[in-house]
């Protein structure tokens, strides 16, 4: 297919602290098509956020390193771009919503101004080949003001509140402001890192709907990072299940939630969710803990917790089993076809 927007190839990221090497992301491959939503699911420490940060070039300096791989955005490798150019892309072409709305806003600047700031920054500079046509014109002060009011309206905040400070807003409202900031430049790719984990369920439902509506209206593609398989099932088109820095299973929603060929970790993750529509008594927990990313392990990273582990799992790293859009990194399947 030709409409691939983002293509991550063999990405490998490490953090190096105190002579210790932490392998956060280990050779992952992800493709995102235009207008689609890709879910990245995994537990704390699986490397989800690190993947997102490397797309935006936001890995902590002198600690985080991309060791290998390419991040192709519309065919151009983002890792080759100069620092200045990446800064222009950030917020304008690719933008990000961070997990915690309480800490991602500046407490001493009114929200309207924080939204306008993005436009002003991207107004003051340059043009580049990755930018869309409509963003290339300079905007006047009045235009910026109007755009800010429009976007507030779109995320469901009355424009009259643009002079409010973040502390005057509830958690759900703050997250709406963060979404407004992320979408004000009409980005082509939106990365949402656990956008609703800090919110209550009824507010979560509101925020997810706003994000879906705006995504459709603005033709944005999205990467949704979450630990909640329910959110993935309801919002995403494709999913990557991450474990210990690897994508252990990748496919469409249908591939992941139906059929009987799955990575044992995916099965464990789904089974350990309390299902409110069934009446089971005990939860099927996955025993044990994720291996520390500082350990060098041979074989499959999940083998120490896997109920189906057999001899070669602990010694040989599994290849990917591929069937159509569905990929599984597990020895159970890699021997077949």
């Amino acid at each position, binding site marked *: 297919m030709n409409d691939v927007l983002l293509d991550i190839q063999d990405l490998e990221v490490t953090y190096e602290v105190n002579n210790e090497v932490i392998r956060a992301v280990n050779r992952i491959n992800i493709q995102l098509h235009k207008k689609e939503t890709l879910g990245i699911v995994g537990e704390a420490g699986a490397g989800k956020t690190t993947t997102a940060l490397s797309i935006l070039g936001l890995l902590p300096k002198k600690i985080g390193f991309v060791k290998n791989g390419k991040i192709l955005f519309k065919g151009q490798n983002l890792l080759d771009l100069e620092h200045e150019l990446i800064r222009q892309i950030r917020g304008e072409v690719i933008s990000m919503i961070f997990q915690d709305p309480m800490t991602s806003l500046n407490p001493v600047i009114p929200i309207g101004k924080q939204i306008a700031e993005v436009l002003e920054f991207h107004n003051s500079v340059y043009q580049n080949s990755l930018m869309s046509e409509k963003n290339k014109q300079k905007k006047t002060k009045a235009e910026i003001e109007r755009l800010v009011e429009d976007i507030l309206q779109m995320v469901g905040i009355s424009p009259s509140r643009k002079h409010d400070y973040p502390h005057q807003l509830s958690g759900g409202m703050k997250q709406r402001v963060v979404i407004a900031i992320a979408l004000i430049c009409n980005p082509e790719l939106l990365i949402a890192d656990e956008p609703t984990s800090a919110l209550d369920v009824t507010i979560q439902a509101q925020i997810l709907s706003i994000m879906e509506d705006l995504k459709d209206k603005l033709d944005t593609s999205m990467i949704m990072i979450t630990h909640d398989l329910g959110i993935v*099932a309801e919002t995403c088109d494709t999913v990557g299940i991450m474990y210990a820095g690897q994508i252990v299973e990748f496919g469409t929603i249908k591939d992941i939630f139906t059929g009987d060929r799955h990575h044992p970790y995916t099965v464990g993750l789904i089974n350990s969710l309390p299902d*409110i529509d069934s009446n089971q008594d005990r939860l099927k927990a996955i025993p044990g803990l994720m291996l520390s990313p500082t350990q060098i392990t041979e074989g499959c990273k999940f083998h120490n917790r896997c109920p189906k582990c057999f001899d070669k799992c602990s010694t040989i790293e599994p290849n990917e089993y591929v069937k159509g859009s569905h990929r599984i990194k597990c020895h159970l399947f890699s021997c077949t076809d």
Partner: protein
Amino acid sequence: MSIPLIETHNLKKYFKTKAGYLHAVDDINIQINKGETLGIVGESGCGKSTLGRTVLRLSAPTSGQILFDGKDITKYNHKQMKIAKSDMQIIFQDPFSSLDPRMIVFDLIAEPIKEILGIKNKKELETKVFKLMETVGLSDKLVNVYPHELDGGRRQRIGIARTLSIDPQFIVCDEPVSALDVSIQAQILNLLMDLQQERNLTYMFITHDLSVVKHISNKISVMYLGQIVETAMSEELFSNPLHPYTQALLAAIPRAKYYEKKKVREIIRGEVTSPIEPKPGCRFAPRCKYVKAECTLADIDYIEISKDHYVACVLHK
């Protein structure tokens, strides 16, 4: 008939603020039978944690009664309360901030045994601590490590061991798994259920997550702005939710399933209103899609609709 171990009658906890009284817990009546679990569900700010703390008298109630084993503990003085507290304990939400970072695992678990049970004998302490670590599934190799060296699941196990160390009958679990990953969350929930069976413990399980509470609770109460709007047996609440707020909460949970067509999300409007000096009538009315004039006229009675199913809503009389 099973006997309630803990009961509250018209329990209220108000906080004084500049704008007036904040009704955190407003006229709550609950009963938990021995060996059973009552789930308390609600969104942030609904007063569920305050209720848990007030029931244990960690914060003093404004009015109302708390009966523990038939005795009103609101009248207890400090000394009597200290004795009563050895039967009533709490597991806190955040295993990262509820453990002293400068104490090793052994001292953390031994602390309540020394302080409350008064056991100082080293040998006896050691046997008790190792026994507890085994009970909660902590390897005895971890006895000399500090909390920061452990992951969230293990830290929460320490929290549980501390709670169990003085052998309480009643435990308030205040969001004990919400800071944990799903696979670890299931381990801790299973542990809590096993312990309940072994020791005939009584739980009040506070959470914002309906799917978690279903597994562990016999009965569930749904709270909204300081009041209980619906109580029913766990099965009944999920199969036949009556209050519009309960229905909305259930509908808002994303289900991990494949849908042929994208599900239309049902959304309740607005946000929780202020709990400071609330107006009479149903507190959910401003967000309710069935709202009628009578909803805001006077407070709605909390009545038994069918056996063990209570609801406060004008739609159900």
